[in-house]
């Protein structure tokens, strides 16, 4: 489903290369975990997948279902089924959460040639998804993410993911800022979305999240490259011994 080939990327307008020849393949139905020390390029990779224009791809390609996405803007990528759950979701004052959800869902439907949702159907879907994440419905009356706690923002991201039903979910440190109960709720939300036609890329620092969202593959990112891949036991090894051994091995 996702094929990243020899990807090189730098911060737009500078010579600072962050991604340096990254290769990664994630199949449909697979949950891939990406781990790595601070500054290894994990968040940058997630932004590049979503199409943020602060980064410029200088070499290589990203194929999604066999098609290069590099020329697509973020909205086109989203409409094709790519979803990034942000590490730090933006607070957007003045944009009502419900209005935002409706516009987002209907924009994607429109791009896929589907009819807009009827209002009662839309409200029903939002209510069900919010309940499954134990979200207080009053939060949805507020402007988007404004005044939400860190945990509430992460839940709101997963709510959006449930409603938009993407095919490729990229979770950027969704576990950061969550207490144990919230971590469980958010993980259950992600697990409920696991399906044979959907892939999930989980970016995290900690093994803890991977106890709840059990990965099929684990990849270690260091200095903009995948230096080691393995199964879920790799995450346990990293938790026990740190990154030093893996980095040395790769050097």
């Amino acid at each position, binding site marked *: 489903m996702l094929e990243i080939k020899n990807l090189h990327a730098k911060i737009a307008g500078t010579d600072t290369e962050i991604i340096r020849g990254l290769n990664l393949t994630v199949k449909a139905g697979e949950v891939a975990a990406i781990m790595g020390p601070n500054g290894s390029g994990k968040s940058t990779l997630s932004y590049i997948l979503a199409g943020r224009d602060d980064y410029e791809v200088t070499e290589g390609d990203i194929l999604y279902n066999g098609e290069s996405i590099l020329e697509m803007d973020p909205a086109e990528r989203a409409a094709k089924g790519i979803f990034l759950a942000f590490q730090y979701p*933006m607070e*957007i004052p003045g944009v009502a959460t419900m209005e935002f959800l409706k516009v987002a869902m209907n924009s994607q439907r429109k791009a896929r040639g589907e009819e807009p949702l009827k209002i009662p159907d839309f409200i029903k879907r939002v209510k069900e998804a919010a309940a499954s994440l134990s979200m207080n419905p009053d939060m949805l009356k507020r402007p988007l993410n404004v005044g939400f706690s860190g945990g509430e923002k992460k839940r709101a991201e997963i709510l959006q993911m449930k409603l938009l039903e993407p095919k490729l979910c990229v979770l950027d440190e969704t576990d950061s800022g969550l207490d144990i109960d919230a971590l469980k709720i958010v993980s259950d939300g992600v697990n409920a979305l696991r399906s044979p036609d959907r892939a999930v890329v989980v970016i995290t620092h900690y093994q803890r999240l991977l106890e709840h969202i059990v990965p099929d593959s684990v990849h270690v990112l260091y200095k903009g490259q995948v230096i080691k891949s393995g199964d879920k036991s790799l995450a346990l090894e990293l938790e026990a011994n740190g990154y030093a051994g893996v980095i040395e091995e790769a050097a």
Partner: protein
Amino acid sequence: MNIHATPQRTPAETAFVDAFGDRLTQLPGDPAVMVKRDGAIEQVKAGLPTRRIESWHYTDLRRLLTSVADFDAAASTTALAPLIEGSKVLTLANGVSVDDKAALDGVSVVRLSEKLVDGSFAPALDLYGSDDAIGAVNSAFVADGYFVDIADGIELEQPLELQNLQGGAQSHVRLPVRAGKGVKATIVERQTGTGAATVSCVSQLLIGDDAEITWVIVQEQPDTATHVAQFKAEIGANAKLRLFFMNAGGKLVRQEVIVKAAGEGAEFTMRGVNLLSGDAHTDVTMVLDHAVPNTSSTELVRNIVTGRAKGVFQGRINVHQYAQKTDAKMACNTLLLSDDAEFSTKPELEIFADDVQCGHGATVTEIDRTHLFYLMARGIEEKAARGLLVKAFLAEVIEEMEDEPLVEALEAKLNDWFETHV
């Protein structure tokens, strides 16, 4: 002996001076009114204000007013549905009152052409100073309008809408409104039309004690029109005035807001939106006097500027020496949507009392790229995402009106503007 270098008159100045000579015999007015007219045209003869006059620094009227439309009372105008359904509408077309005196219970309406000859109106034509160019042009030429008197204690259930429609001609009108003690009313002022008109309009509102007035100005002139206007108000004791304005059109626009909190406990709220596009030049200049103790005011102006448009907000708050315990807050926030868009903000606080709370703030920003990315990452196309963010920026100003039909009507106006301009 002083030697006056008489500057050459601009075509616009010449047009005004010549038109005054031509129209003098047709202008209604008792002798006192005619004396005011004569004084006013003398001020026009001395020249329209330039950037060297401080209050006109960002709007050099002499340079910007390149031509003046002809008078033509018969120019065709397009009928306008009221902003809020069910409103009582009084219409002016090319400066002439077309509705009769028929009014609501407790509200008397007189054509200004009649008021101008009844011996009472001359003081209302006084200018606020040598820089009162809008007042001068209007006082010289004003021939009609509506004089509205709302009796003590009247609560209007439906808004009163005053429509000033133009069909490409020159017109000068006045809308004096007196709201008695305890009156509750919403008054909507519409300024629109179809041509390259030159329009001046002076609204004068006198608010009695304990009254609550909401005044809404919606200016949607075509992008060829010159529109200069004043809104003057005096607020009585424990009375409330909420002023909302929306400038969404015009080529050259100046809206002056001159308000005096004259009675203790008076409250003034101003919320405004300037939607500027193309080559528009729009100036909102406010002078607010806190003249007595224990009055309060808040002013919030939000601006969207795109194309090569230029905007100006000058906000001056004078807190008089006697006006202790004044509470005044003013803010002006601008969102620039294009590289050539411009906005100038000049807040001024002049405080002579020592026990007051006054503050002001101004910001100029562009659309936050991280916000845009977030919305687009959820599949919202760029144009729609920008629209959401721009509306979000304005939403606060409009939603605060807390009057559902009014908020809905104004949001519809915003949407219309976005459809064609963003």
